[in-house]
């Protein structure tokens, strides 16, 4: 049963090691590696030997923000396809938002989705429970019973909770179960009828702008509430420079605040909207160039902990509309790894840094075993050939939803292998 990965360049973000070596996987876990031992095992004793010459091998990616359109809108994308597409990019764990139909706001929904996902034997699926019933922001959902069923955190999906008392109680209550509250920060009053980021571009296009402070105001409020309640708080898909500043300050104070962002916010800015391209209509909206640079700064200095795909399957009909009538969101699963590799290349990130942002940190935030190449860790692995150049082509997407503002973007690096619990995925 044992598999030897030899001649690999191993990257363990947990131990911050990046060097050539070998790895043995047996019964779904990592059992030996060159990090801990000098001599590799006899190849004859292995059931399989994988020569990883010229390849990077690291812990599988953990995507902490994925919208599934199944259950509820399987015509857009099914869970099976979603989990398959994930493994094609070396994503071995993903966490889905509760905004399905029906909403994942009770223990029975979590049970049923986890059971279905386990049958596919693809990427590992985890569920957030909805923070409020029906995601309406008015009544707390049964967080305790959802925790018992396996919820790894509580999310508001793409909605923001305006009511500060509700948010305070959610944080206080979630604290009992040691689970983070994941919030989409948006001041809905500043965001009314929003099409895109506020500023010159919006003015030229005649679209309604949302100021970046719509995000930061709610984030700042949440940080104060986290200070009051001692809660574990996570800010999702951060897009604004000012938000990066307030998170940096909160972390310096020692608050248990974490944050993620997604490729659009470090790769693109509001100019992508210029041709009324509805694929670039996102929430939070693409911001200014200064915001984009600040997001990258936040990723580099550790203020932003993680990169997530922010995958949002959209029916093409919902995007084939005048910009202001089109839906928000874009497909993220097929973009997540290529665009993060591009960030690594353009900003000279180390492999350890990249794997920290895409594997170790999200795993830590969600309390998962993933994100490390330690003995006893699950054998969730990704293999990358770093030296191949590609053009991102929406028609090649593995996910069924192919709406993307990144079509035609060149990048370097390709996922050449993926193992979940030691099982080869392709």
């Amino acid at each position: 049963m044992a598999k030897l990965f030899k001649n690999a360049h191993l990257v363990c973000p947990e131990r911050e090691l990046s060097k050539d070596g070998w790895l043995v996987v047996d019964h779904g876990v990592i059992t030996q590696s060159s990090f801990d031992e000098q001599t590799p095992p006899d190849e004859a004793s292995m059931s399989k030997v994988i020569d990883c010459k010229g390849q990077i091998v690291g812990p599988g990616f953990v995507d902490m923000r994925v919208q599934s359109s199944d259950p509820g809108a399987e015509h857009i994308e099914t869970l099976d396809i979603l989990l398959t597409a994930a493994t094609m990019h070396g994503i071995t764990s993903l966490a889905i938002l509760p905004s399905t139909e029906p909403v994942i706001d009770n223990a029975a929904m979590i049970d049923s989705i986890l059971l279905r996902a386990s049958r596919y034997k693809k990427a590992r699926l985890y569920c957030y429970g909805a923070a409020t019933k029906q995601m309406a922001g008015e009544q707390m959902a049964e967080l305790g019973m959802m925790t018992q069923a396996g919820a790894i955190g509580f999310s508001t999906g793409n909605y923001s909770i305006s009511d500060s008392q509700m948010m305070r109680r959610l944080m206080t209550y979630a604290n009992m179960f040691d689970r983070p509250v994941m919030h989409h920060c948006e001041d809905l009053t500043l965001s009314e009828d929003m099409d895109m980021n506020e500023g010159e571009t919006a003015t030229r296009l005649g679209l309604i702008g949302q100021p970046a402070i719509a995000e930061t105001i709610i984030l700042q409020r949440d940080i104060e509430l986290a200070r009051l309640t001692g809660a574990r708080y996570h800010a999702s898909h951060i897009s604004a420079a000012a938000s990066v500043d307030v998170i940096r300050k909160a972390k310096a104070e020692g608050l248990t605040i974490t944050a993620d962002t997604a490729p659009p916010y470090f790769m693109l800015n509001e100019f992508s909207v210029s041709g009324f391209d509805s694929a670039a209509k996102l929430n939070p909206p693409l911001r200014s160039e200064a915001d984009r640079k600040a997001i990258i700064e936040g990723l580099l200095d550790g203020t932003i902990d993680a990169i997530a795909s922010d995958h949002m399957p959209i029916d093409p009909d919902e995007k084939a509309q005048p910009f202001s009538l089109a839906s928000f969101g874009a497909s993220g699963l097929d973009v997540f790894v290529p665009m993060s590799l591009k960030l690594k290349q353009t900003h000279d990130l180390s492999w350890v840094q990249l794997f920290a942002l895409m594997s170790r940190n999200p795993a830590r935030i969600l309390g998962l075993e993933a994100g490390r190449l330690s003995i006893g860790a699950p054998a969730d692995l990704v293999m990358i050939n770093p030296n191949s150049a590609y053009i991102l082509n929406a028609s090649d997407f593995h996910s069924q939803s192919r709406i993307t503002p990144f079509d035609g973007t060149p990048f370097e690096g390709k996922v050449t292998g993926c193992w979940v619990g030691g099982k080869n995925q392709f």
Partner: protein
Amino acid sequence: MTEKQTSHHAHTLKSGHLLGIEGLGVDEITALLDRSLYFADIITSPSEPHDDVSKILHGVTVVNLFFENSTRTRVSFEVAAKKLGASILNISVSGSSVKKGETLVDTATTLNAMHPDILVVRHHAAGTPLLLSKHVSAAIINAGDGRHEHPTQALLDALTIKRSFGRIAGLKIAICGDIANSRVARSNLYLLGALGADLRFVAPSTLLPSDVEKLGVPVFTNLNEGIAGADIIMMLRLQKERMQGREIPSQHEYFNLFGLDSVSVDKLAGDAVIMHPGPMNRGVEIASSVADDPERSLITQQVEMGVAARMACLEALRPNGLARQKGR
């Protein structure tokens, strides 16, 4: 039942009122408790020869002034007053001039002009009994003011415990449920704490008032951890309006996490007992199998002891020989 320290001697309260447990001396608490034990013996074994207590409050007028609905507390005071020979009047809110727009103080002043001796007051606003005590010459007994105090409940709980265990000092007592909104929890904390009990609060984090641990009580947000090794578990009522998703997601989740059922109780010491100030929400904070367990439940005894404890309080505030400060 172990040795009892009943008192055959009436005593008085220094302030001339019973506004709360906080502020009472341990000597006053002990004296009230001893006297309660004396009355408890009398009411629980009427066939045995006893002192005639029916003259103790002869000629004394007690007024039940309840601004909040109550059956058990109001009736309990009424029975206690009658057993001591007092005349008692019940003023119900619905029929009173309060509904006609009269201020609280005016109502009290008007009543005071009729010279009642003792006013038993329940009101939804914390501090009302203290306010009234400054405007009337009658003695005030706080029968529950908002989230603040319910001193006679604490006294009857202590009486029930003392009759069951023979002591209070050293007993491990877990008070579980809606601590934030509970006057019973506060009064019991002061009273049982003063008598040396080892208390703890157990509640969902959203039903714990801020800085509660600064009152000197350990706090738990997990029922089974909080009640581990307890001699006594006091369950508090969770009001329906708290289960609408603001404080607690649902009744279902509350019972699942904080409801006392036979599974939790089985983990306790063999002689652990269950108390509840009532009225109970069966299937919310307590399962019927626990509430009705004759081996463990003291809930009915608590009601019985309420009369004895209130007899002691009324007696301690009887007008003759009191050094009460007149309000006006």
